[in-house]
């Protein structure tokens, strides 16, 4: 199978709303400049990333490129990276999402901003669930009670 061609043919959700690598780069750099200066988020980010901001910003551009433009550039483990940060609270996520939305809406056309925001909210929720689970704040996953419907029923009208 011709992998490089297949990879070029992959179209991510960002393409339809005009998201480009340049836009991602601009947004990531502007947003994290805001984060570093933010009284709530700056101290945590600066402590965790230290001198590694150049690498970190490149990694974050790779992440958004992978998620929105299907370039498969990012390889990493954001879930444990967040779980490791003992002082993270839901208020930090709320603040992050607020600043990200503000920056995206300032810098990007409306549809592109909306996609960035939607993805960031979904991923933020997922990370928060993972953090809560790791802290024993959630019940363990368990199967549903036996369903009364037959297995051949479609998923309609659950």
């Amino acid at each position, binding site marked *: 199978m011709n992998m490089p061609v297949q990879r070029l043919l992959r179209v991510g959700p960002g393409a339809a709303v005009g998201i480009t690598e340049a836009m991602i780069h601009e947004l990531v750099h502007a947003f994290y400049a805001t984060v570093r200066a933010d009284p709530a988020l700056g101290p945590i980010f600066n402590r965790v990333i230290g001198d590694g901001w150049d690498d970190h910003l490149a990694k974050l551009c790779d992440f958004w490129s992978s998620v929105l433009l299907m370039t498969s550039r990012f390889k*990493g483990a954001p*879930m444990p990276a967040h779980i490791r940060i003992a002082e993270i609270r839901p208020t930090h996520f709320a603040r992050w999402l607020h600043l990200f939305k503000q920056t995206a809406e300032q810098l990007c056309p409306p549809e592109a901003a909306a996609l960035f925001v939607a993805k960031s909210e979904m991923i933020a929720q*997922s990370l928060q669930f*993972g953090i809560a689970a790791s802290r024993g704040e959630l019940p363990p996953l*368990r*199967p549903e009670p036996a369903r009364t419907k037959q297995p051949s029923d479609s998923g309609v009208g659950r």
Partner: protein
Amino acid sequence: MTYVVTDNCIKCKFMDCVEVCPVDCFYAGENMLVISPDECIDCGVCEPECPADAIFPDTDPKATGEWLELNKTYADIWLNLTHKDPPPADAAAWNGVEGMRASFSPNPHVSEPRRVA
């Protein structure tokens, strides 16, 4: 929160999902892949990529508790897969066939030897 691999992956096992996952949270069995619910970050890139439409967010009715439990269980048993191997020769024939749960194999995937570049 997580995405969940369901029925139509079994015996199709196209593995396109593995190539696009940014956090490498797919684990491979003999005839199916699963997503580790502890590692999935809900970015959603795998869902449209699957030729068998076998992947759903856990908010979707098709991602039942049974499938969620199966994904969680086998993500802890099988090995992580980060590259797409050739799918089974008859993958296309199984795409859309219902009731594949009974054909599920608990055995792990065996990667083909990689070609040395």
